[in-house]
């Protein structure tokens, strides 16, 4: 605990001092970028842009960034920075016990995501080494699903796959070391080292890719504008969806990180840097990925549209093929998979920190105790479910449903509740403006209270319709209902229960005074 000799210069209660904090604005910005830049920037954005109008996608994408992404990011910053707590504690201080449910809902979502996200990083760790001697041989597709994952038909079993189990344990060990080390010495230090490294490594990858034969055709496919796409509502929904998922907004991460930031820090200016850095990295990833896809198309004598893909197929099937055929392929492979590991790990740490911070606040635990209480069970479930021959369909289903009917839904509900039930937007705006370099006007209230929830509701309804039309991924009903809807619904039920559990009496549930919160 904090000794009296280390009293806060701004008169903050000891409790806040003991929560830990980033030592400077720079560390916070790098940590927030580390959280926002994840697998989605590398393997999702390029294909979404290509599919939805190519160069013309830039317009809905920028609109979505400016009217939804950045305003929403600032809302999260405002909540965490004003109320100085984890998601449940911040919402509790804003609106009482019912509001606290929103925070736990976000915590539950983060717990689910952390459990499956870790295994993708574990695969990328293995593939970083596979790249050196191109272990996948002539058929990367058969290698990934067969030799590497030993994939069985959908089910839940305990047939462990050694090649996934050990790297997965390694990933969780790394995560635990980072979170036990703390906000500044763990999360902050990792971000300060690895985010610049990630940018340099990815830049090297992009430059190498640009010199491959066929790279120009790939870029041509990515950037040639299809202006007709702008009249398609689906393209606009894709842009809002991409911005939303890519920025890590709406499910507690940015609330948690903002609660660790000094009281006089310029949060609006910082948010602008984080939001634009995230999009800048996506653009870089788009250029690198499509230059490489252009090479692959030319090498196989096909059009770029026949090789363009996203997600697991892009990373673990298409890229290995590119690495096998390209000159200096091992170099490309180590940079590509190494970047996935770094981008994924910094995001995973931010996701699990939401859960740790919440448990820590509620039970008033030490950092090490909360980190282990959350991290060890999460690692165990992660290993049991995803280091097995039956892991992939479970991962795919959980990811699809928790993204849409977890993250997207809680984001819309929380935004509407903050704006219209707790009517806190005015206060949050004043709070952000007190130390911010980007003045928020009435426009921000309109964007956060009306425009963004409306846009995200449209995306949500669109997704709901798609999943009701046909079972997701053609998977059996038990998987879609049990794992998909089960995870999305389960976290909500859990949130209601947890919000009703008592807080440790030492935790101050009242909002910090306005003066002290600045």
């Amino acid at each position: 605990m904090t000794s009296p000799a280390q009293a806060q210069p701004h008169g903050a209660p000891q409790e806040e001092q003991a929560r830990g904090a980033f030592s400077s604005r720079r560390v916070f910005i790098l940590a927030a970028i580390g959280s926002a830049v994840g697998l989605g920037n590398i393997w999702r954005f390029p294909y979404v842009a290509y599919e939805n109008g190519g160069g013309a996608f830039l317009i809905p994408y920028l609109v979505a960034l400016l009217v939804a992404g950045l305003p929403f990011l600032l809302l999260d910053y405002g909540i965490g920075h004003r109320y100085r707590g984890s998601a449940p504690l911040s919402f509790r201080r804003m609106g009482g016990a019912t509001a606290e449910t929103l925070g736990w809902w976000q915590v539950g979502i983060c717990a689910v995501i952390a459990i499956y996200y870790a295994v993708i990083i574990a695969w990328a760790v293995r593939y970083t080494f596979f790249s050196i001697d191109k272990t996948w041989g002539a058929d990367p597709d058969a290698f990934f699903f067969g030799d590497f994952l030993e994939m069985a038909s959908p089910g839940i079993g305990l047939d462990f796959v050694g090649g996934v189990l050990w790297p997965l344990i390694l990933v969780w060990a790394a995560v635990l070391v980072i979170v036990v080390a703390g906000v500044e010495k763990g999360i902050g230090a990792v971000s300060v080292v690895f985010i610049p490294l990630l940018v340099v490594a990815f830049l090297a990858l992009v430059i190498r890719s640009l010199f491959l034969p066929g790279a120009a055709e790939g870029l041509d496919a990515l950037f040639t504008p299809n202006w007709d796409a702008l009249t398609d509502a689906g393209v606009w929904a894709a842009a809002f969806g991409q911005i939303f998922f890519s920025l890590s907004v709406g499910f507690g991460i940015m609330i948690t990180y903002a609660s660790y930031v000094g009281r006089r820090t310029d949060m609006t200016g910082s948010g602008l840097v984080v939001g634009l850095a995230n999009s800048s990295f996506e653009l870089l990833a788009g250029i690198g990925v499509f230059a490489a896809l252009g090479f692959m198309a030319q090498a196989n004598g096909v059009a770029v549209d026949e090789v363009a893909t996203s997600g697991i197929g892009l990373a673990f099937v298409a890229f290995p093929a590119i690495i096998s055929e390209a000159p200096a392929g091992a170099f490309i492979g180590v940079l590509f998979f190494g970047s996935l590991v770094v981008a994924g790990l910094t995001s995973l740490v931010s996701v699990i920190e939401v859960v740790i911070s919440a448990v820590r606040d509620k039970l008033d635990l030490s950092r090490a105790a909360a980190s282990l209480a959350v991290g060890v069970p999460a690692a165990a479930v992660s290993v049991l479910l995803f280091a097995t021959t039956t892991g992939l369909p479970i991962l795919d289903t959980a990811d699809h449903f928790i993204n849409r009917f977890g993250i997207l839904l809680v984001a819309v509900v929380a935004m509407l509740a903050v704006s219209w039930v707790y009517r806190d937007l005015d206060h949050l705006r004043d709070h952000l403006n007190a130390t911010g370099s980007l003045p928020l006007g009435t426009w921000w209230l309109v964007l956060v209270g009306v425009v963004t929830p409306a846009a995200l509701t449209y995306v949500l309804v669109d997704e709901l319709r798609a999943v009701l039309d046909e079972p997701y991924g053609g998977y059996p009903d038990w998987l879609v209902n049990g794992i998909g809807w089960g995870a999305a619904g389960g976290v909500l039920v859990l949130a209601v229960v947890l919000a009703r559990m008592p807080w440790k009496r030492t935790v101050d549930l009242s909002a910090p005074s306005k003066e002290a919160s600045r």
Partner: protein
Amino acid sequence: MSTSAVVMMVVAMLVLWGGLALAILNVARTTREEPDEVHRDL
């Protein structure tokens, strides 16, 4: 690459990377950084 693709690529770079550069300049310019404090994290 076609002219329209080159134009859209350059516009995207200018807007996003240029925007990032301006945003960094903006926060670097403001002097609202807190003084060094002892941060405990126990």
